[in-house]
């Protein structure tokens, strides 16, 4: 995809600290976030960063509780890289990538350290809400892990689940009683949900928010989940190259301020969205 001279150019840029688009090594591209685009879904969000375009839809359905966790709801994530992003994703081309991305999302969204799913339980020991987070990668410009985590967090924040009660009617059958007030919804608290920050190791240095071309030159990458408290929630190393243990330490430390910055930018954007569209 990229020529050896292009690769050399990008690597040297990273060494000097000036990347191809003018950013410094720790520079993050500005991103735009919109929520509530899909009225049919319970929640949705669209994230655009560079040319990466992610659409996440959240749907809630009733299901039987997990016997090992009878007082909680459930969450299932899936990612689909669409062929519109690259013809390589046609048919089963993106199968492994989809699985890897979905796993990364489930890692940071699963309870108990992230989302609190206890108020998604409808009848303890019987029925609960199951949240399906379905992400579509419509266009790719690099940095899919981070983008997916930001978009999913925003979509979960946007999610509105109807308030229901299970009642037994005169015939002894169990019915769903929908709350009469259309403005009464269950919302999810995404405060403790982390975002993923990926550091890509190129030319002996690490950069954040890599573009597609930069990802082609990468030696290895470390993806870290960072939450509001500045704690590390998930760590995943990818790429075929090896990284010295000391370097990994530095990379982990570098991720924290970036993660906190993204979270605060996200929360500001989400708050502004909430204020400009009070009812849906």
């Amino acid at each position, binding site marked *: 995809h990229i020529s050896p001279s292009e690769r050399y150019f990008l690597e040297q840029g990273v060494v000097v600290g000036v990347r191809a688009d003018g950013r410094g090594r720790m520079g993050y591209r500005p991103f735009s976030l919109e929520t509530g685009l899909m009225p*049919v879904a319970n929640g949705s969000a669209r994230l655009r960063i560079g*040319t990466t375009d992610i659409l996440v839809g959240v*749907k809630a*359905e009733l299901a039987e509780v997990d016997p090992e966790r009878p007082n909680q709801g459930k969450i299932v994530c899936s990612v689909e890289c669409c*062929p*519109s992003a690259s013809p390589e994703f046609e048919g*089963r081309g993106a199968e492994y990538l989809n699985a890897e991305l979905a796993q990364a999302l489930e890692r940071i969204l699963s309870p108990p350290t992230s989302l609190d799913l206890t108020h998604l339980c409808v009848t303890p020991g019987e029925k609960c809400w199951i949240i*399906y987070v379905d992400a*579509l990668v419509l266009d790719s*410009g690099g940095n899919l892990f981070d983008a997916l985590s930001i978009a999913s967090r925003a979509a979960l924040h946007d999610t509105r689940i109807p308030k229901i009660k299970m009642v037994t009617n005169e015939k002894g059958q169990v019915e769903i009683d929908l709350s009469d007030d259309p403005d009464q919804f269950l919302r999810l608290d995404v405060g403790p949900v982390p975002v993923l920050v990926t550091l890509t190791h190129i030319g002996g240095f690490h950069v954040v928010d890599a573009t597609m071309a930069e990802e082609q030159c990468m030696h290895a990458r470390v993806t870290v989940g960072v939450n509001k408290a500045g704690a590390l929630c998930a760590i995943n190393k990818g790429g075929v190259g090896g990284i010295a243990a000391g370097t990994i330490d530095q990379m982990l430390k570098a991720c924290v301020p970036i993660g906190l910055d993204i979270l605060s930018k996200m929360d500001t954007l989400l708050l502004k969205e909430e204020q400009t569209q009070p009812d849906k």
Partner: protein
Amino acid sequence: FVCSNMSRVEYLTPEGYRLDGRKATELRRIKSRLGVFSRADGSAYIEQGNTKVIVAVYGPREAAIRSKSKHDHAVINVEFTQAPFATGDRKKKGKSDRRTIEDSLLIKQTFESVVLTSLYPRSQIDLYIQILQSDGSVLAASINAATLALIDAGIPMRDMLCACTAGVLNGTPVLDINYIEQNAGGPELPVAVLPHSGGVVLLEMNSRVPLDLFERLSKLACDGAKAVYNLLQSE
């Protein structure tokens, strides 16, 4: 679970209004945008009411599988997928779902007759269709979006291909049916036409309909498709 008895839904009131307030032959509002993706050679986004479809076109490019290429014209390859959150119930449709394959084949054959494929021997043109939200007339919306995407990609076609779906509600032929009307159980007739020549390229129906009603239906659908063409032209 026990659902309370739903009263018989009046799909078309005596005054002639449908569930969403439209008249029988009224189309939903169409919004479209070209060039929405950075890497695709052509792309388009279309909204017909609440149905949202996005199409990306790659090509003409060298055929990926040599055995599938033709020596004298280009091959059109269609992948038709629906997002899991597109409908009221979440449905994760696999890519080898039979209905999906059938729809892909239908769209492929439709465009192979319109695109000037003889100009690009031994190559392939990829059409990737993604349904983001489904509210009826999905096949028609996909064809409209695909036409726009092909135009955005600069691929020559004999004519613009425009499509529309007709149905029957309470005995009256109606145009551009939505999801609820689709599930009312009446016949559903998607039609794609070439606006300038008036030729019908695609016509498909899976229900039983008396012949005279069918004639009215197909004429209505063709008129609807021409109206879609006028709307798209003006954008």
